[in-house]
């Protein structure tokens, strides 16, 4: 397998990882108002494939954010306790939006590298065709 093909495989794995990340971010934003929801985070791990000698990336296990849930004062809510408040989610929209933007940029970078490798291979073959 040539280096250019390996480049494409690695950048495709990067795109898959960023796609998984933005899915989790979207789930967090969708559940921002769900009482008791803990935001999900995911880690990235390098995958070593000795047969193809590539260093692809993959998403690790999904973890729940252990930070404090926000206590929301709303006596009219059916979930509210004796003190008139209930536990909301610990999703911070600003953090999620920033995370989504970062995933977007990383995805674009991987896409760029994929296209770059494809163009390089294509132009090399163009040389053979002349």
């Amino acid at each position, binding site marked *: 397998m040539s280096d*250019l093909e390996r480049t*494409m495989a690695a950048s*495709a794995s990067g795109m898959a990882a960023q*796609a998984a990340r933005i899915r989790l971010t979207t789930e967090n934003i969708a559940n921002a108002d769900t009482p008791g929801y803990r935001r999900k985070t995911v880690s990235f791990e390098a995958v070593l494939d000795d047969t193809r000698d590539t260093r692809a990336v993959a998403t690790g296990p999904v973890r729940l954010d252990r930070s404090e849930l926000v206590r929301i004062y709303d006596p009219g809510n059916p979930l509210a306790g004796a003190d008139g408040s209930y536990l909301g989610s610990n999703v911070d929209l600003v953090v999620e939006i920033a995370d989504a933007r970062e995933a977007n940029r990383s995805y674009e970078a991987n896409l760029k590298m*994929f296209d770059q490798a*494809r163009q390089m291979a*294509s132009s090399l*073959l163009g040389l*053979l*065709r002349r």
Partner: protein
Amino acid sequence: MDIKATLASQLYSQVQAVARPAPQDTPVRSPGEAFATAATDFMATLRQSEETVKAGLAGRADPQAVVEALAATELAVQTAVAVRDKVVEAYQEILRMPV
């Protein structure tokens, strides 16, 4: 600026060392064998990416894998076409040879 003859010859020998082809570790194969291997690899690439695309259409593979498989197929087909064109060209060249 004066360039000494010894310096020039030294540089020349260095360039020779760089330009010398690296020794091949792989055993020498016949051209037919090499072509057969290349054709088998080509078929394997096509078959694999076909499977990936089918899985992608069925929703079992992610779009990134489909795009990667299609790009690999594209490159493989381009290579095969370029090599075939070269072979046909060489054959026609032989046919045009005045006897």
